[in-house]
């Protein structure tokens, strides 16, 4: 048979990894991305990538990496794929090194490693503090090489709208929209791989990039794909509050010795440098003596909220704490953390070499995502997924520097599996449903562009972000989450009255945004309702009314399926694979 054609949607680390594996194996790939792939959100990852290379004589092993990851994720992750990822990780680091990633080096010329949260080992390889950017560029370069050889065709500036499903519910391609001409077209493929990243935009302001709306995942969810563990949202402890976004301040700042503190005296008016050690409250070090500033993110975030909201110790009475690097010498900081210190100085106007940074937790990552099996395939035959948009590797809380590894590893698994699947796929009947799906999408576009109402999509989005950030992030109450869901239902209703102030058919960005907004709203319900159902506290999901983990009832994956009914998605619980490590209490405050 002819060479199978695979479509990869999304050109971040996961998407590019999948593309490389398929091209290398002789498959033909069409790569779709809203932005030129070199501008994908993976560039924002800062601190590093985990692999138990054990180059520091600490006796680190892939099993310890596996155990730290499962324990850090509060046992919610299926253990088989996590174990495979940790075993593959050292080889992936070597490959990235061979591709030319400028990793930091030891004096002898070996890869350098640093510490990250949720582990006691130096396990994180890094390229300054712009590791994601460097990894993405290395993969982008390899894809460009395949592109120049004609093995990959890029569709940059195209937005995925939906999958094409045949009469048996098998995927036969995608529909996508050219963001300049606004033309909707069908692209046939034997298999597709969804690598569309995070969903930060659902929370309004987050550390995510503008394109991280979750729109593609939501479109597939509405076409019948399961969405799993949506309620698990990681709020990063250290972000720089901003008007347009919350800028990440990498965990590597603490990995290199950064300390989090507040003045012991509420609203202490003194400048931070003049406050003596004895009058500083290093709360993470006091509360978690073994891990100190490097407890997992959910723990650090809740500690900062406790200090600010319950103990009233935020700096100047505001929602901020200090992240202090000013005790570390300038040359070391520049060599290991240059990129992130530059971001702070540029956007805040204060030099963090000399002054403690002011930070606060910000929405950062979704552990949940498209449900996939161990071959990275969703429940819809022919639709695979890899990267942040799927749920497989991080359980109830992701460890820092595991995301880059899960993206690349996931792409490396999804690519070859999609190719294998495609080679065995029986030929489609007729056009496989393409014409019908294109017609459906054009109809949606027509309704949207001609709609007469008075709702501005950007204003509605701000309302969505405010309600989700207030009720569905760090501390969750069923009452608040019910309010949030009611608000989202109201927004879905109001969406019918949307009015685009721009009705043109050329590079209409508000039109594309309005389509994304609808998908954001549907996914917001799934996240919230999953949170209401889960009456326990596990990893990033914390309910004061249910403060303990309840393995008997909730050591389960939440699987949501779209119904279109007013009461929202159908939720069911699925067994978690715990065959290697028996779940144990997760306590970072004691040994």
């Amino acid at each position: 048979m002819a060479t199978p054609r695979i479509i990869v949607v999304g050109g971040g680390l996961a998407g590019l990894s999948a593309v490389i594996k398929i091209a290398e194996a002789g498959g033909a790939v069409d790569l779709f991305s809203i932005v030129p792939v070199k501008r994908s959100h993976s560039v924002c990852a800062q601190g590093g990538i985990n692999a138990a290379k054990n180059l520091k004589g600490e006796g680190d092993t892939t099993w310890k990496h596996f155990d730290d990851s499962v324990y850090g994720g509060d046992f919610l992750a299926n253990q088989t794929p996590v174990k495979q990822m940790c075993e593959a990780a050292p080889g992936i680091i070597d490959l990235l090194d061979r591709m030319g990633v400028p990793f930091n080096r030891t004096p002898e010329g070996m890869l350098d490693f640093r510490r990250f949260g949720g582990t006691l080992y130096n396990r994180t390889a890094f390229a300054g503090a712009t590791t994601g950017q460097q990894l993405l560029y290395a993969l982008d370069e390899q894809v460009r090489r395949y592109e120049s050889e004609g093995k990959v065709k890029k569709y940059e500036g195209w937005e995925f709208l939906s999958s094409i499903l045949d009469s048996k519910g098998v995927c036969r391609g995608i529909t996508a929209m050219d963001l300049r001409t606004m033309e909707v077209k069908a692209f046939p493929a034997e298999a597709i791989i969804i690598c569309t990243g995070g969903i930060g935009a659902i929370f309004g302001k987050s550390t995510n990039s503008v394109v991280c709306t979750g729109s593609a995942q939501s479109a597939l969810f509405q076409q019948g794909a399961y969405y799993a563990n949506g309620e698990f949202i990681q709020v990063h402890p250290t972000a720089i509050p901003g008007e347009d976004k919350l800028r990440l301040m990498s965990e590597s700042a603490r990995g290199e010795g950064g300390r989090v503190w507040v003045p012991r005296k509420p609203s202490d008016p003194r400048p931070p440098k003049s406050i003596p050690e004895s009058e500083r409250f290093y709360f993470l070090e006091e509360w978690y003596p073994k891990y100190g500033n490097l407890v997992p993110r959910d723990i650090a975030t809740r500690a900062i909220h406790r200090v600010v909201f319950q103990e009233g110790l935020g700096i100047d009475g505001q929602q901020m704490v200090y992240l202090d690097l000013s005790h570390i010498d300038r040359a070391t900081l520049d060599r290991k953390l240059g990129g992130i210190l530059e971001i702070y100085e540029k956007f805040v106007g204060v030099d963090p070499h000399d002054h403690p940074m002011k930070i606060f937790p910000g929405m950062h990552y979704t552990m949940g995502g498209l449900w996939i099996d161990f071959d990275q395939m969703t429940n819809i035959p022919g639709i695979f997924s890899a990267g942040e948009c799927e749920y497989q590797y991080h359980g109830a809380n992701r460890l820092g520097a595991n995301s880059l590894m899960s993206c690349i590893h996931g792409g490396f698994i999804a690519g070859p599996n999609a190719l294998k699947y495609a080679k065995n796929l029986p030929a489609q009947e007729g056009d496989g449903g393409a014409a019908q799906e294109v017609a459906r999408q054009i109809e949606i576009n027509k309704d949207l562009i001609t709609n007469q109402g008075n709702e501005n999509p950007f204003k509605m989005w701000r309302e969505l972000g405010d309600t989700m950030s207030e009720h569905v992030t760090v501390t969750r109450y069923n009452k608040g989450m019910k309010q949030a869901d009611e608000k989202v239902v109201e927004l879905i209703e109001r969406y019918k009255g949307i009015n685009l102030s721009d009705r043109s058919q050329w590079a209409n960005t508000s039109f594309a945004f309005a389509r994304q907004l609808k998908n954001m709203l549907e996914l917001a319900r799934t996240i919230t309702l999953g949170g209401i159902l889960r009456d326990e506290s596990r990893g990033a999901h914390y309910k004061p009314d249910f403060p303990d983990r309840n393995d008997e009832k909730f050591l389960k994956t939440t699987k949501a399926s779209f119904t279109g009914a007013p009461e929202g998605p159908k939720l069911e619980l699925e067994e978690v694979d715990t065959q290697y490590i028996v779940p144990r209490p997760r306590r970072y405050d004691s040994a």
Partner: protein
Amino acid sequence: MANKTVKIEIKRQASPEDPAVWEKYEVAYRVGLNVTSALMDIAANPVTASGKPTTPVSYDSNCLEEICGSCAVLINGRARMACSALIDTLEQPIKIAPLSKFPIVRDLQVDRGVLFENLKKVQAWVPIDGTYDLGVGPRQYPQQQEVNYPLSNCISCTCCMEVCPQFNISTGFVGAATIAQVKLFNNHPTGSVLKEERLRALAGDGGIQECGYAQNCVKACPKQLPLTNAIADVSRDVIVQTVKDFLRG
């Protein structure tokens, strides 16, 4: 402080065929406001300063922290990233226009695809054998990493090309960003296997000889790449390569 506003003027163009017009806006001032947040404000309330309804401004942006390279525009005449342009540091009215050296798409959006094509021409990659496990990479010392890492920080924003007097359609000059990548990959132990081909790609029309040493590029680069050093080093290597090729016949 009540009702303090920011005055902004934006050069708008509905499509490549339409005429360009300047439109004026006022948005509410907040501490820490940057140009991208002001553009978001206009989208949420698309009216001009005189109260006339308008359309949201089309512009490229993504990471909003100066690492993706999307949002390069001209702000008060200077090529720079819109996300890191803090309102407090800008003279008002703030005049925002699209980059002038690239084909316009709409409003502040331009097509900068030429850079990615140039990167193909110079084979800006390390030609690895494959992605299967071949063991560790070549040993490299921290001193080498410290030379290569800054070159690898290029975000493809094209500010260096916008400000270059030699970069235009008639010269076909590849521009500083591509030359810096040639130095980066020629420096890499495995990447250097393609060194001669990369240098030949930079010889002749549109190649490195077009550089007029105006040094605008290094001043405009938001990531402080050592662009003029890279041009000097690669220039020398291209000349040596050209002479070698001539002598070899």
